[in-house]
């Protein structure tokens, strides 16, 4: 059993402590917006916020995540109001297949907390998610749009 605080809600989950947070989120908490892409922290599709920091949830164990504030893509919006990154993604039509975009959006949201007006170099350094569809130029444009708002 583990207690996880996800999107402001406490989940008591029947899960072993060494289970990757990704699978606890997807299978035990039932929040499937966080995606599995590689399982070895390479692709970033499973990015969530752990105490406000972007982390690849496939590489974080449930025991490490206990007692921390976890935010997934489902918890990014405030009620019916989309987060500014989501709004920019919609306005710029960023996603293609969209499978990597939950992780991409979470990575960008974390970057903007740290650097509200990131340069191209900041984006290059912080956003290392794989997108096989190749949405990178829309991602970059959307980030700059948010930063200049």
């Amino acid at each position, binding site marked *: 059993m583990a207690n996880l605080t996800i999107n402001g809600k406490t989940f008591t989950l029947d899960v072993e402590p060494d289970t990757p947070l990704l699978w606890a989120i997807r299978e035990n908490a039932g929040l499937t917006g966080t995606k599995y892409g590689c399982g070895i922290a390479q692709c970033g599709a499973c990015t969530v916020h752990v105490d406000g920091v972007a982390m690849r949830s496939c590489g974080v164990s449930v025991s490490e995540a206990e007692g921390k504030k976890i935010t997934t893509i489902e918890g990014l919006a405030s009620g019916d109001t989309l987060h500014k990154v989501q709004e920019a993604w919609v306005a710029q039509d960023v996603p293609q297949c969209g499978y990597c975009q939950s992780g991409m959006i979470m990575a960008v949201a974390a970057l903007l907390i740290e650097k509200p007006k990131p340069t191209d170099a900041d984006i290059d350094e912080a956003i290392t998610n794989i997108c096989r569809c*190749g949405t990178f130029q829309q991602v970059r444009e959307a980030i700059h749009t948010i930063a200049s708002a």
Partner: protein
Amino acid sequence: MNKHVSPRLNRRAFVIGTAAVGAGLAIGLDIPFGGPAVVRAADGSPEIGAWVVVRPDDTVVIRIARSEMGQGSLTGLAQLVAEELECDWTKVTTEYPTPGQSVARKRVWGDFSTGGSRGIRSSQDYVRKGGATARVMLIQAAAETWKVPASECTAANSVITHTPSGKTTTYGKVAEAAAKLTPPADVKLKDPKDWKLIGKGVKRLDTVDKTTGAMIYGADVKLPGMLNAAIKDCPVFGGKLKSFDEAKIAGMKGVKKVVKVGDTAVAVVADTWWHAKTALEALPIVWDEGDNAKVSSESIAKWLAEGLDDKQPAYVGNKNGDAKAAIASAAKKVEAVYSYPYQNHATMEPMNATALYTADKCEVWCGTQNGEAAFAAALEASGLPAEKCDVHKMMLGGGFGRRGQTDYVRQAVLIAKEMPGTPIKLLWSREEDMAHGRYHPITQCKMTGAFDANNNLVALHYRLSGQSILFSLRPEALQNGMDPAAFQGVAQSGEAAFGYSVPNLLVEHAMRNPHVPPGFWRGVNVNHNAIYMECFMDELAQAAGQDPLEFRRKLMGNHPKHLAVLNAVAEKIGWDKPAPQGVYRGIAQVMGYGSYVAGAAEISVTDGSKIKVHRIVASTDPGYVVNPAQVERQIAGSFVYGLSALFYGGCTVKDGKIEQTNFDTYNSMRINEMPRVESVMVPSGGFWGGVGEPTIGVAAPAVLNAYFAATGKRIRSVPLRDQNITFA
């Protein structure tokens, strides 16, 4: 929530598809006196022809048979229908009919397959007619209500107007009456000059849910009582499963069953996928690897190299004059050998399918590029007839050709069959996905060019050796043994025609099929043919002492559409002006999937091995552009996919198995490595070409030619990582 920016993919269709076993899209038929049957959607709204449902609130539901996998066809196809329907675009939503429903209705929605950049171009005619048919019926219904001639009525934005009286009504109000009318036998489509919605970069219909985590991909399917399966197939292709020691994992948490899947694979079924995968990794498995375990990249390369020898048999795909004789008597000749490796599609979402089997029903939920092929796989694996099977298409987390195959559907059904009544979600690990791809085929190519004394190219011999996709996947499409698709981009005519006139030309293919299963990988045979031909064109230009662009232009006089896109990129990148200090350019062109494309790159190279790509310009003439915003994204995306393969890709074979296991050994480009792609669309009209794939063909040769310009070194094999060349 800001959900009115764009219309949305109809969630209801997914809910119906995932929740209600046996519920169909169409729930009933009204048989009115004398008139045709009214087919109703699940919510009771009437169909106005198979492609359009109109709800009383004027919402228009457009049926989409092809699959959305990121390429934007869902939106483009809806635009095509809506253009002719003259409906209010802000009230458009979409839904997928199921393959089972299509079969039951004599394939009323046509082909479901979504590959070969065919989504728009192969269905544009009949989906536009579907929209036009519905418009005619809706206008007719309004005219009959008003007792006026239909010819006095017009429709725009879902409003029908009787012009002489000024009376108006809406589609939602006359839909019931329209549905009872006999559809017109023939409808006239708009002249392209009158298009209002086609050609506009309207927003995609499926974006919002992709930003909130609400979009349901195959891997996200949840059904009541569902269990999860992880699978391992024999890592040596063609090998078999010998045995496994189930007792060793018997006590592991969550494990429900261990299942032999066909002759080659074993799956663990558990409460969660994590438990299934953990147990599968602990399961002792013995494989019967067979003779293929002796095969390596080296042995394949040697076998293919032998095929480059003229004495070996080969199929002739394109020929004029006598290339061999002209080469023998030429003043000067140039020869080079190139190669291209296996590539994995590496879709972000690994292969998966969910199946529910009972004695009289088999249903599958999955992302597929070919709903009908998935349906056929479900039929075959379940042993049930068509009326007892169906496939519910989910959003695809990438396709790129991989999800046109149905191996994962078959596996899911076979596992579900062992546990009747329990829905089983089979999800491949990334490692399984890397080990069991349907790989971009492996080839080598020897090219010989010959010049006369005035440096005119008089002969070209293009000899390809290697794998045929059709031999493995569609043998019925072979022509007397020859794979016509092997000549994509260098073919005599058709949708992938060669763009140069050479007086003596011989293009041939020595087919050699190693045991590694090939597949249609975005761009397919255009990828290697464009690299070979376009890099060698640069070598020929160099040998002739001519500018690569000017050298090409002289050979393209009879190919004005090929030339037009080449000129478009040359102009945009500023070929006639010097590049910035330290920056070098490369250029390439090819035709594929009915479209003419060209690309140019500006790069700089540090220490001969660190490449920075500064600029990419790409041009396409697909005839018509339905949604320029989506075409732009397909062009840019194709460069990311093509350059990822060039720099980081390449699957190698050792002991009969693929060596790469995950993104650490099969990397993909990141945002810092990719410049903005500047698209130049020059649609010339009169034909319909594809968009998703063709531009990938020019990505690698444009960069490789720029690399030569920068370093004086030719790169003739892929990936660059094998030569310690990477991004700066």
